[in-house]
């Protein structure tokens, strides 16, 4: 599986603020990648670096083997929808499509017109008069009609009501099914990501905390509930990601190849939302590193 996006030690600094640090990633082609993390974790920065809207202050990033925005051909391969789906308020929907056709060599006019028609959007409508859901759909239409190989979406559904959100994701999945593009979308809504994503990247405090295929992550993480004990006392092969202790009980999130059955504990699978929240918790151990024993904290 070849990588569509590769970064090595990628960083971006704004004055004193480090927006992204030491980011090394390899995103396989053909995936729908969920990019999660708290506000300010560096999600938008990573997406803007990937599309070449901004340039790195350290490290490297390549998209399809080339630096982002390195030429017209490269630009044509990448679609980007910025946060809040910006559109020109005074221009009509039809104007937007004409602009898209003018500015993009590989423009698929039929795909664009079809989408707008099926969404029931009036082409004569000014973009400023569209609902939030319609504007998001217009922005998605503009991005997919250039038939990109990589589609980057920054919080595309955050401002939408549940119905518009579902409609948006349906349209996006239809595009992926038909054209096999790779998608990276950032979102806070993990339940949406669970439907559409097969790869996950979690950023915390400007660093990559977790990256991997969703299925692999789900089959290797468990919640282990047991009488109070130290994480170090668990058998080898159970890597403690997070430990919470109460008077008598310990609850661990562990990473392991398979569930280990023992009458002394209950070990059950974790859903994606709990898994993500575990890694976003600043108290969780850094993957790979040995967790600090509770008694020392």
């Amino acid at each position, binding site marked *: 599986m070849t990588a569509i996006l590769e970064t090595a030690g990628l960083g971006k600094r704004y004055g004193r603020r480090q927006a992204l640090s030491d980011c090394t990633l390899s995103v396989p082609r053909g995936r729908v990648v969920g990019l999660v993390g708290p506000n300010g974790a560096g999600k938008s920065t990573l997406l803007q670096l990937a599309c070449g809207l901004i340039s790195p202050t350290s490290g490297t990033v390549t998209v399809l083997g080339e630096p982002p925005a390195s030429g017209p051909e490269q630009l044509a391969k990448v679609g980007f929808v910025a946060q809040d789906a910006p559109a020109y308020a005074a221009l009509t929907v039809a104007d937007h499509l004409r602009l898209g056709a003018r500015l993009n060599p590989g423009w698929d006019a039929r795909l664009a017109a079809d989408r707008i028609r099926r969404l029931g959007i009036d082409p004569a409508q000014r973009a400023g008069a569209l609902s939030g859901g319609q504007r998001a759909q217009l922005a998605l239409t503009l991005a997919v009609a250039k038939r990109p190989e990589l589609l980057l979406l920054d919080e595309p559904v955050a401002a939408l009501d549940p119905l518009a959100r579902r409609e948006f994701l349906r349209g996006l*999945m239809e595009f992926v*099914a038909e054209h096999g593009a790779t998608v990276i979308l950032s979102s806070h809504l993990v339940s949406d990501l669970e*439907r559409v994503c*097969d790869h996950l990247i979690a950023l915390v405090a400007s660093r990559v905390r977790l990256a991997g295929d969703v*299925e692999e992550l789900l089959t290797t993480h468990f919640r282990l509930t047991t009488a109070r004990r130290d994480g170090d006392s668990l058998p080898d092969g159970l890597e403690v990601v997070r430990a919470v202790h109460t008077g008598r009980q310990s609850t661990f999130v562990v990473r392991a190849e398979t569930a280990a*059955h023992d009458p002394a504990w209950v070990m059950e699978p974790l859903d994606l939302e709990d898994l993500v929240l575990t890694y976003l918790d600043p108290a969780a151990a850094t993957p790979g590193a040995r967790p600090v024993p509770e008694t020392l904290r």
Partner: protein
Amino acid sequence: MEFHLDTRSGVAPYLQLVQQVRQALRLGLLSEGDRLPTVKDVAAQVAVNPNTVLKAYRELEHQGLAAPKPGVGTFVTGTLGDLSPAEHEPLRRELRRWLGRARAAGLDEEGIEALFRTTFRTHIEEET
């Protein structure tokens, strides 16, 4: 065939799709020779990753319930080898006897359910 997805169920999305096809077969909503919706249609209808649909269809093929015809689609090829209700009876009797013994041994409802669940899960894992 209409699919739906429950992200709170804890069941993997692809397995939910597999179960829905099996259920449709059981209910007679689908029968041999029927064409399953295309991957694109399911992805667009349910708002689910197309790879999840592909995986579900591959699993159905593996179970002998569906087969792809290149360029045409995926078709239902089998029926569920489920037992008839009459054939369930001896198994049910055995299970009831076991439940009685579990009760007599002092397990409450939750204890019985937990024991059944973990044993069932371990058994499935060992079989696959």
